[in-house]
């Protein structure tokens, strides 16, 4: 038996996946055109948003580069390092467990693939940073920013290589929210939420806040804390909403209509959303920025509810969730920009339609 020492199966898998995707798009031109249009619309909206906020972005980044250039670079390096650390850990896990794990793939091939992926990851980060800095009119900040990204990427990649034995998962009864024998679905979400808010996951966010805080003023501390809260809330939101898809897989065959269990799984995400929005609104009002609260929280609340409705409606085919959300959000944002008075009725219609679909998926109510 002789394995091909130069063959990179992971590249081959990627090439085949792209080939299959292209063939799928060719076979369904209508769907492909629709998806392309939706993606194009989303890109246009994002571009328009970035351009409209160009002055604010320039002002914020200008202050950061004037008053705390080192802190900004450190934060950038930390973000890049964290992203590379997670990417490398994910890659290692995948290589250790996927269908090719037991195949004879040579170490040089794995090393090449690893650094190619890291380089691609860095190039994407660099491109994004470059676009933001050029839009903000700060081309002079680009070289140090790229150097910070590179340093962070290298540290993240090397840190992920430090061997750590897999820890035994904490038993469920050790988590703060579990009581023995309590089989209510929202407890499941609370367990997921507690996992998302675990100290280990928050460490990187805290490190970011620490980097920014020593430079002084409230204006630096507040963004760090807001960033911390937003990212933690996002992680908690993803985990608690993810339970809906898992519950569908688990309960689909049970003789239960969706209305008996599905609405209960909306309680925790809605509670999290409500609490986060209330806290953010209170902070904005205390800081005398009531208008900002409306401007930020209203779209956030609307989009989050839309996301929850999309997850519930498409829980049986989770691959469709992202596309459904993209389409609904694009349509809503486009209407909100072009015909603002129609945005609220449209949003309510979308929620109603998705809600109806959610409750009629699976066994219908008697």
């Amino acid at each position, binding site marked *: *038996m*002789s*394995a*091909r*020492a130069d*063959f990179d*199966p992971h590249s*081959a*898998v990627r090439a*085949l*996946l792209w080939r*299959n*995707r292209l063939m799928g798009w060719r076979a369904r031109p209508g769907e492909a055109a629709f998806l392309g249009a939706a993606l194009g619309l989303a890109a246009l909206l994002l571009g328009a948003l970035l351009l409209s906020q160009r002055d604010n972005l320039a002002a914020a980044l200008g202050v950061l580069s004037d008053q705390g250039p080192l802190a900004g670079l450190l934060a950038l390096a930390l973000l890049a390092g964290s992203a590379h650390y997670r990417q490398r850990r994910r890659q290692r896990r995948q290589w*250790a*467990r*996927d*269908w*090719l*794990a*037991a*195949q*004879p*793939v*040579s*170490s040089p091939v794995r090393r090449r693939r690893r650094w190619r992926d890291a380089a691609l990851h860095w190039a994407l980060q660099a491109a994004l940073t470059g676009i933001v800095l050029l839009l903000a009119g700060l081309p002079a900040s680009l070289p140090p920013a790229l150097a910070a990204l590179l340093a962070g990427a290298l540290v993240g990649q090397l840190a992920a290589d430090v061997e750590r034995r897999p*820890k*035994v998962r904490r038993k469920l009864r050790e988590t703060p929210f579990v009581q023995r024998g309590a089989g209510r679905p929202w407890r499941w979400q609370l367990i997921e939420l507690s996992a998302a808010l675990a100290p280990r996951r928050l460490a990187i966010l805290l490190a970011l806040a620490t980097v920014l805080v020593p430079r002084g003023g409230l204006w630096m501390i507040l963004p760090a804390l807001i960033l911390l809260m937003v990212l933690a809330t996002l992680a908690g939101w993803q985990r608690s909403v993810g339970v809906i898809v898992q519950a569908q897989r688990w309960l689909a065959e049970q003789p239960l209509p969706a209305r008996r269990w599905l609405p209960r799984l909306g309680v925790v995400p809605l509670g999290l959303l409500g609490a986060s929005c209330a806290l953010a609104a209170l902070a904005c009002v205390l800081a005398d920025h009531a208008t900002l609260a409306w401007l930020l929280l209203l779209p956030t609340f609307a989009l989050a509810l839309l996301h929850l409705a999309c997850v519930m409606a498409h829980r049986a085919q989770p691959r469709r969730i992202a596309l459904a959300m993209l389409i609904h959000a694009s349509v809503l944002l486009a209407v909100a920009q072009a015909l603002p008075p129609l945005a609220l009725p449209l949003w309510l219609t979308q929620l109603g339609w998705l809600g109806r679909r959610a409750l009629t998926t699976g066994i219908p109510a008697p």
Partner: protein
Amino acid sequence: MTAALELSAIHLRHGPNHVLRGVDLRLQGGELVGLIGPNGAGKSSLMQVIAGTQRRDGGSVRIAGIDLDADPLAARAALGVAVAPERLPALLSGRQCIELVADLRGQRDGLEQSWALAERLGFAPWLDHPVHACSLGTRQKLAIVQALIGRPPLLLLDEALNGLDPLAARALKDELRQRADAGSAVLLATHGLEVAERFLDRAVLLLDGRIAADWDRDCLRDFRADPRGGLEFAVAERLRGAHSS
């Protein structure tokens, strides 16, 4: 004669739990060996240790005389593993998976044998369907065809007969017997004691991470004639003994 598989003092721990406690096992070429045991005995962990996908805490693994740690590439090239069906790539077709693994193993010339095996297992009509469109049994067939690419001296099959229809199960048994006759060793983890009794040359009972019994071909033949239930009875006795102690 070089053993197809040689395990020496394999230890594995998951946190405080000892999963494998010094497993020694030797398989010669041409042997069809069943690895049996209750749930949680460590069968799948042992298979993963042999495949090199599970880190072990002690002991050594030699495949066809090659040390897995010293030369993992050559050791893995001498090994055919049927992956769990849920690990197969959902968006590739069966044909793409088989061709890719054949490319990787330098066995492109032997693809005709793989297509013929796919035909015998009843997998041929599904070759060009994406994996996600296949049933569990059909994916199991794909995993088996992939494991049997080329002529590896050692085959590892974990519950490979699960989910197969009777015709495919028969075809797989015939194929494994042919491979064994040609000199390959097969280690099949299974809960099917009847399969172990009637089809295999040897059955190894794994209990609490240790080899509790190793029955050879003569023992298995005696079991077949035993009116008390043969291998099933013997395994049950060992389990009761283990629980009472």
